[in-house]
């Protein structure tokens, strides 16, 4: 039962390990002469002003928010899509209804101007 996952359980750590070996090789073989200038934050040679933690706009959060809701919705629909061929018409329509209820949310965001990037 867990059989198909064995390959995944091998592939993911190997996929992590191989680049790690490459990076490690770079660290070991490359020269290493750190100094204060090299350690500074890179901004094309201009001195950094202020700290890294400048405030970011909340729009980023709004988009992440819409994404989360739609992501959950899409995931809910996958079992529906798998069972699609055995379904009667009304069941299909229920899935579509599920979609359209959330489409109303997208419409709301659109009307309210939450999708504008200004």
């Amino acid at each position, binding site marked *: 039962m867990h059989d*198909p*996952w*064995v*390959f*995944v359980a*091998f*592939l*993911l750590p*190997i*996929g*992590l390990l*191989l*680049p790690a070996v*490459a*990076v490690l090789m*770079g660290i070991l*073989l*490359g*020269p290493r*002469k*750190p100094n204060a200038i*090299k*350690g*500074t*934050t*890179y*901004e*094309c040679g201009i001195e*950094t002003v202020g700290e*890294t*933690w*400048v405030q*970011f706009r909340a729009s*980023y959060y709004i*988009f*992440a928010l*819409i*994404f989360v809701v*739609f*992501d959950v919705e*899409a995931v809910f629909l*996958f079992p529906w*899509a*798998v069972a*699609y*061929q*055995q*379904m009667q*018409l009304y069941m*299909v*329509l229920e*899935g579509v209804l599920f*979609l*359209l209820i959330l489409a109303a949310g*997208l419409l709301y965001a*659109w009307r309210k101007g939450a*999708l*504008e*990037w*200004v």
Partner: protein
Amino acid sequence: MGDPFGLIGQWLMDLVTGWGMQPVAALTLLRFLGAAILATVLLLVCFLLIVAERKLLGRFQDRYGPNRVGPWGVFQTVADFVKLIGKEIVVPDGIDKPVYWLAPLLVVMSVVGIWAVVPFAPGFLGTDLNVGILYIVSVGAIGTLGIIMAGWSSNNKFALLGAFRAVAQLVSYEIPMVLTLLVPTMLAGSMGIAAIVEAQKDMWFITAAPLAALVFLISSVAENGRAPFDLMEGESEIVAGFNIEYGGLAFGMFYVGEFLHAFTVGVLFSTLFLGGWQGPGAEQFPLLGLVYFFAKAFVVWFITVWIRGSFPRVRIDQLLSLNWKFLTPLALLIVSLTAVVDKLAVEQGWSRILALLAANGALFVGTMAVLGAYGRSVRLREERLRATAGGLSTGIAR
């Protein structure tokens, strides 16, 4: 010549059990070897992919591309690799060390992990998960995580800003991608990639769902973060983006991840919509299936490179508008329409493909009409603005 992959697997199995191993242990060992070989080959193929892409881009832009190292410059990436190894890795102060070093590895892992479920030829695939499609989405989500970790740990406000932008873009375009993935799932009645390829025996899904395929391709290219959606690497706006503080091979890993992902997009598109290894004679001769598979994948990959070489970069507001105001509603419509039309077609005994094609065509015409109307309204508004502006300036002149 019947089934080389099955034969090879059987032969290896016999070989290992011949050494006195338990069958279960032998199978596990073979799986481990398979995973190791797959990952290694993928990362090595990347050397060729990068040269090929650079050559292609060069030709698109009327120049030669790399042509010095080796015949036609094929060893250019090897030279770059050696150079990157020999470079000093400059690590800025104030970084968050474990997170900083983990981030590029996660990005590569997320791309390599996708290949676990890709069927190369009949009977030749890593593993057949019954939730293959969602597995691909979930592994892709880890890449997003790697990018935000890179941006956060670098202690650089431009890296952080780049990471914010990149994540906003990646998560946004994940929605139409996931929604259009529902279409092949519906048509095949399974989330397993092998079953989806199997279901395309008679017709490729692109014939039944051309619009879904198009939306999937666009959002995949955007997920990959390349031109015209390469905002996460706006050199002139945010210095470089989330990977600014990385150097040497650590930066190289982001690069590898991106180029490998580009090819993976081709592979996924050809598997989900172009029938994967399906083709005349592929059932009898699995090797032929392998050829079909890579031929299709390379064609799609070529198209993405072509897109990259042809289109200018979009602005971030255009990027997000394209996704949320165009692709996502369109994907919602496609899924609803496909579900209803396909079910009706089966129940009424219409021809499925024709009904689906007609529905897609109607949707396409409708979308074009809406876009045309929108374009006209924008042009009108601009003309009116220009007219008033012109009036103003003449007024001042007088």
